[in-house]
Protein backbone atom coordinates (compact mmCIF):
# COMPACT_ATOMS: atom_id res chain seq x y z
CA UNK A 1 0.00 0.00 0.00
CA UNK A 2 1.25 3.44 -0.80
CA UNK A 3 2.17 5.37 2.28
CA UNK A 4 1.69 8.75 0.76
CA UNK A 5 -0.97 10.19 -1.47
CA UNK A 6 -0.74 13.61 -2.89
CA UNK A 7 -3.78 15.81 -2.57
CA UNK A 8 -5.51 13.53 -0.16
CA UNK A 9 -4.96 15.50 2.95
CA UNK A 10 -7.86 14.17 4.97
CA UNK A 11 -6.50 11.10 6.60
CA UNK A 12 -7.98 10.55 10.04
CA UNK A 13 -5.70 7.64 10.88
CA UNK A 14 -2.60 9.60 10.11
CA UNK A 15 -3.86 12.44 12.28
CA UNK A 16 -4.68 10.03 15.05
CA UNK A 17 -1.29 8.43 14.82
CA UNK A 18 0.42 11.78 15.06
CA UNK A 19 -1.66 12.71 18.07
CA UNK A 20 -0.74 9.43 19.70
CA UNK A 21 2.94 10.00 19.00
CA UNK A 22 2.67 13.41 20.55
CA UNK A 23 1.11 11.99 23.68
CA UNK A 24 3.64 9.20 23.94
CA UNK A 25 6.52 11.58 23.51
CA UNK A 26 5.79 12.98 26.91
CA UNK A 27 6.08 9.49 28.35
CA UNK A 28 9.56 9.05 27.01
CA UNK A 29 10.08 5.43 27.97
CA UNK A 30 7.05 4.02 26.27
CA UNK A 31 7.44 6.01 23.11
CA UNK A 32 9.81 3.78 21.26
CA UNK A 33 8.60 0.51 22.71
CA UNK A 34 4.99 1.04 21.79
CA UNK A 35 5.71 2.21 18.29
CA UNK A 36 8.51 -0.16 17.46
CA UNK A 37 6.31 -2.67 15.71
CA UNK A 38 5.73 -0.38 12.78
CA UNK A 39 6.74 -0.63 9.18
CA UNK A 40 10.26 -1.57 8.31
CA UNK A 41 12.05 0.43 7.13
CA UNK A 42 10.64 3.69 8.37
CA UNK A 43 10.72 6.44 5.78
CA UNK A 44 10.68 10.21 5.79
CA UNK A 45 10.04 12.42 2.79
CA UNK A 46 11.15 16.01 2.68
CA UNK A 47 10.97 18.62 0.01
CA UNK A 48 13.95 20.87 -0.68
CA UNK A 49 14.03 23.70 -3.22
CA UNK A 50 15.34 21.41 -5.96
CA UNK A 51 14.39 17.87 -5.03
CA UNK A 52 12.36 15.46 -2.99
CA UNK A 53 14.46 13.47 -0.57
CA UNK A 54 13.33 10.10 0.74
CA UNK A 55 15.29 8.73 3.68
CA UNK A 56 14.82 5.27 5.16
CA UNK A 57 16.31 3.71 8.27
CA UNK A 58 17.67 0.35 7.11
CA UNK A 59 20.54 -0.48 9.44
CA UNK A 60 22.52 -3.64 8.95
CA UNK A 61 22.20 -4.46 5.26
CA UNK A 62 24.64 -4.30 2.37
CA UNK A 63 24.27 -1.35 0.01
CA UNK A 64 24.21 -3.60 -3.05
CA UNK A 65 21.43 -5.74 -1.64
CA UNK A 66 18.98 -2.85 -1.55
CA UNK A 67 16.72 -2.75 -4.57
CA UNK A 68 15.42 0.66 -5.55
CA UNK A 69 13.08 1.01 -8.52
CA UNK A 70 10.87 3.75 -9.79
CA UNK A 71 7.99 3.50 -12.19
CA UNK A 72 4.77 5.33 -12.82
CA UNK A 73 5.35 7.80 -10.00
CA UNK A 74 5.96 5.05 -7.47
CA UNK A 75 9.21 4.43 -5.68
CA UNK A 76 9.73 0.85 -4.54
CA UNK A 77 12.34 -0.20 -1.98
CA UNK A 78 13.04 -3.87 -1.41
CA UNK A 79 15.48 -6.07 0.42
CA UNK A 80 16.15 -8.65 3.07
CA UNK A 81 17.68 -8.24 6.47
CA UNK A 82 19.02 -11.54 7.70
CA UNK A 83 19.81 -12.52 11.27
CA UNK A 84 23.47 -13.33 11.97
CA UNK A 85 24.38 -16.82 10.86
CA UNK A 86 25.85 -17.82 14.19
CA UNK A 87 22.60 -17.13 16.04
CA UNK A 88 20.13 -19.90 16.65
CA UNK A 89 16.41 -19.44 16.98
CA UNK A 90 16.47 -20.69 20.56
CA UNK A 91 19.52 -18.75 21.66
CA UNK A 92 17.85 -15.35 21.83
CA UNK A 93 17.40 -13.67 25.17
CA UNK A 94 16.01 -10.51 23.68
CA UNK A 95 14.65 -9.89 20.25
CA UNK A 96 13.53 -6.45 19.20
CA UNK A 97 15.07 -5.97 15.78
CA UNK A 98 13.28 -6.76 12.56
CA UNK A 99 14.56 -9.58 10.39
CA UNK A 100 13.27 -10.87 7.09
CA UNK A 101 12.21 -9.57 3.71
CA UNK A 102 10.97 -6.02 3.58
CA UNK A 103 9.23 -3.97 0.96
CA UNK A 104 8.03 -0.38 0.84
CA UNK A 105 6.12 1.42 -1.89
CA UNK A 106 5.98 5.18 -1.89
CA UNK A 107 3.83 7.30 -4.17
CA UNK A 108 5.74 10.37 -5.17
CA UNK A 109 4.06 13.71 -4.70
CA UNK A 110 5.01 15.13 -8.08
CA UNK A 111 6.84 14.35 -11.28
CA UNK A 112 10.53 13.74 -10.77
CA UNK A 113 13.54 13.57 -13.04
CA UNK A 114 13.94 9.80 -13.03
CA UNK A 115 17.20 9.83 -14.97
CA UNK A 116 18.96 11.89 -12.36
CA UNK A 117 17.76 10.24 -9.22
CA UNK A 118 20.46 9.18 -6.83
CA UNK A 119 20.57 6.75 -3.92
CA UNK A 120 23.21 6.63 -1.20
CA UNK A 121 23.48 4.27 1.71
CA UNK A 122 25.58 5.19 4.68
CA UNK A 123 25.52 4.36 8.39
CA UNK A 124 22.32 2.41 7.91
CA UNK A 125 20.39 5.18 6.25
CA UNK A 126 19.26 5.05 2.66
CA UNK A 127 18.89 8.46 1.11
CA UNK A 128 17.25 8.87 -2.26
CA UNK A 129 17.41 12.22 -4.00
CA UNK A 130 14.74 12.76 -6.60
CA UNK A 131 15.28 16.00 -8.51
CA UNK A 132 12.07 17.65 -9.51
CA UNK A 133 11.24 17.42 -13.19
CA UNK A 134 11.39 20.72 -15.00
CA UNK A 135 7.82 21.53 -15.89
CA UNK A 136 7.19 20.84 -19.55
CA UNK A 137 5.99 23.57 -21.85
CA UNK A 138 2.25 24.00 -21.78
CA UNK A 139 0.78 22.77 -25.01
CA UNK A 140 -2.06 24.55 -26.62
CA UNK A 141 -4.84 22.26 -27.73
CA UNK A 142 -7.10 23.57 -30.39
CA UNK A 143 -10.76 23.23 -29.68
CA UNK A 144 -12.77 22.33 -32.71
CA UNK A 145 -16.38 23.05 -33.02
CA UNK A 146 -18.33 19.85 -33.13
CA UNK A 147 -20.77 18.92 -35.86
Amino acid at each position, binding site marked *: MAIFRWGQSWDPFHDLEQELDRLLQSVHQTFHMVRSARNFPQCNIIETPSAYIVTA*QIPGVEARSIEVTISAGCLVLKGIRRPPEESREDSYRRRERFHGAWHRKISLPDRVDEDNMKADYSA*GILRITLPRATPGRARQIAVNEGP
Partner: protein
Amino acid sequence: MNEQDGQLIPRRSDLLPATVSGTASPAGTPSSPEQPQLLFHPQMDIYETDDGLVLYADLPGVTLDGLELQVQDKKLTLFGRIRQTADEIVQVLHQEYQIGHFFRSFILSDDVDHDRIEARLANGVLRVSLPRAERAKPRRIEVAGN
Protein backbone atom coordinates in the same frame (compact mmCIF):
# COMPACT_ATOMS: atom_id res chain seq x y z
CA MET B 1 22.31 -9.28 32.08
CA ASN B 2 19.74 -6.91 33.42
CA GLU B 3 18.44 -3.98 31.60
CA GLN B 4 18.79 -0.90 33.64
CA ASP B 5 16.99 1.66 31.63
CA GLY B 6 13.58 1.07 33.12
CA GLN B 7 14.04 4.29 35.03
CA LEU B 8 14.47 7.73 33.71
CA ILE B 9 17.65 8.28 31.85
CA PRO B 10 20.11 10.23 33.95
CA ARG B 11 21.06 13.61 32.71
CA ARG B 12 24.47 13.53 31.13
CA SER B 13 25.41 17.15 31.03
CA ASP B 14 28.95 16.34 30.01
CA LEU B 15 27.77 14.72 26.79
CA LEU B 16 24.55 16.27 25.75
CA PRO B 17 23.60 19.75 24.75
CA ALA B 18 21.22 21.50 27.10
CA THR B 19 18.25 20.66 24.92
CA VAL B 20 18.72 16.95 25.45
CA SER B 21 17.80 15.93 28.92
CA GLY B 22 16.22 12.56 28.64
CA THR B 23 12.81 13.90 27.85
CA ALA B 24 11.25 14.52 24.51
CA SER B 25 10.62 17.86 22.93
CA PRO B 26 7.67 19.80 24.27
CA ALA B 27 4.40 18.27 23.20
CA GLY B 28 2.74 19.95 20.28
CA THR B 29 5.88 20.96 18.45
CA PRO B 30 6.74 18.32 15.90
CA SER B 31 10.51 18.19 15.89
CA SER B 32 11.93 18.98 12.49
CA PRO B 33 14.32 16.39 11.12
CA GLU B 34 17.35 18.67 11.19
CA GLN B 35 17.26 19.29 14.92
CA PRO B 36 18.03 16.16 16.86
CA GLN B 37 16.96 16.65 20.41
CA LEU B 38 15.20 13.42 21.20
CA LEU B 39 16.72 10.40 22.84
CA PHE B 40 15.72 6.93 21.72
CA HIS B 41 16.29 3.41 22.93
CA PRO B 42 17.94 1.55 20.13
CA GLN B 43 16.31 -1.74 19.26
CA MET B 44 18.42 -4.66 20.35
CA ASP B 45 18.91 -8.38 19.97
CA ILE B 46 20.85 -10.41 22.48
CA TYR B 47 21.68 -14.04 21.92
CA GLU B 48 23.87 -16.64 23.49
CA THR B 49 26.77 -18.42 21.86
CA ASP B 50 29.17 -21.01 23.19
CA ASP B 51 31.56 -18.24 24.20
CA GLY B 52 29.16 -15.84 25.82
CA LEU B 53 26.63 -13.26 24.74
CA VAL B 54 26.37 -11.23 21.57
CA LEU B 55 24.46 -7.98 21.44
CA TYR B 56 23.24 -6.22 18.32
CA ALA B 57 21.84 -2.69 18.39
CA ASP B 58 20.29 -0.72 15.54
CA LEU B 59 21.83 2.74 15.44
CA PRO B 60 20.82 4.16 12.07
CA GLY B 61 22.73 7.33 11.31
CA VAL B 62 25.43 6.81 13.92
CA THR B 63 29.02 6.75 12.69
CA LEU B 64 32.15 5.69 14.53
CA ASP B 65 33.03 9.16 15.76
CA GLY B 66 29.57 9.62 17.24
CA LEU B 67 29.52 6.40 19.22
CA GLU B 68 30.53 5.97 22.82
CA LEU B 69 30.58 2.62 24.50
CA GLN B 70 31.56 2.36 28.12
CA VAL B 71 31.86 -0.26 30.78
CA GLN B 72 32.07 1.01 34.29
CA ASP B 73 31.34 -0.99 37.41
CA LYS B 74 29.56 -3.74 35.49
CA LYS B 75 27.41 -1.19 33.69
CA LEU B 76 27.53 -1.17 29.91
CA THR B 77 26.44 2.13 28.45
CA LEU B 78 26.03 3.01 24.82
CA PHE B 79 25.44 6.45 23.48
CA GLY B 80 25.10 7.15 19.76
CA ARG B 81 25.13 10.66 18.54
CA ILE B 82 23.35 11.66 15.35
CA ARG B 83 24.76 14.37 13.18
CA GLN B 84 22.49 17.02 11.81
CA THR B 85 21.78 17.10 8.12
CA ALA B 86 22.16 20.31 6.21
CA ASP B 87 19.14 20.01 3.95
CA GLU B 88 17.21 23.13 3.32
CA ILE B 89 13.73 21.90 4.05
CA VAL B 90 10.83 23.52 2.31
CA GLN B 91 8.30 21.09 3.66
CA VAL B 92 8.21 17.79 5.52
CA LEU B 93 5.89 15.72 3.36
CA HIS B 94 5.86 12.52 5.34
CA GLN B 95 7.43 11.53 8.61
CA GLU B 96 7.54 8.06 10.09
CA TYR B 97 10.64 8.34 12.18
CA GLN B 98 12.06 11.12 14.20
CA ILE B 99 15.70 11.92 14.46
CA GLY B 100 17.43 11.71 17.79
CA HIS B 101 20.37 10.31 19.66
CA PHE B 102 20.47 6.76 21.01
CA PHE B 103 21.04 5.77 24.59
CA ARG B 104 20.76 2.50 26.46
CA SER B 105 22.48 0.83 29.35
CA PHE B 106 22.70 -2.64 30.84
CA ILE B 107 24.10 -4.21 33.96
CA LEU B 108 26.45 -7.01 33.00
CA SER B 109 26.40 -10.18 34.97
CA ASP B 110 29.52 -11.24 36.86
CA ASP B 111 30.50 -13.93 34.42
CA VAL B 112 31.24 -11.51 31.55
CA ASP B 113 34.94 -11.03 30.98
CA HIS B 114 35.12 -7.25 30.87
CA ASP B 115 38.61 -7.17 29.38
CA ARG B 116 37.64 -9.14 26.33
CA ILE B 117 34.56 -7.22 25.30
CA GLU B 118 34.73 -6.37 21.62
CA ALA B 119 32.58 -4.02 19.57
CA ARG B 120 32.15 -3.32 15.90
CA LEU B 121 29.98 -0.79 14.10
CA ALA B 122 28.95 -1.42 10.51
CA ASN B 123 26.11 -0.02 8.43
CA GLY B 124 24.46 1.54 11.45
CA VAL B 125 24.47 -1.66 13.51
CA LEU B 126 26.59 -2.13 16.59
CA ARG B 127 27.72 -5.63 17.49
CA VAL B 128 29.16 -6.20 20.93
CA SER B 129 30.50 -9.56 21.98
CA LEU B 130 30.50 -10.23 25.68
CA PRO B 131 32.63 -13.31 26.27
CA ARG B 132 32.06 -15.41 29.33
CA ALA B 133 34.94 -15.44 31.77
CA GLU B 134 36.90 -18.67 31.85
CA ARG B 135 35.90 -19.53 35.36
CA ALA B 136 32.24 -19.22 34.49
CA LYS B 137 32.44 -21.89 31.82
CA PRO B 138 31.21 -25.27 32.94
CA ARG B 139 34.12 -27.39 34.05
CA ARG B 140 34.08 -31.11 34.04
CA ILE B 141 35.26 -32.59 37.27
CA GLU B 142 36.87 -35.92 37.12
CA VAL B 143 35.59 -38.22 39.76
CA ALA B 144 38.19 -40.56 41.00
CA GLY B 145 37.41 -44.02 42.17
CA ASN B 146 38.86 -45.38 45.36
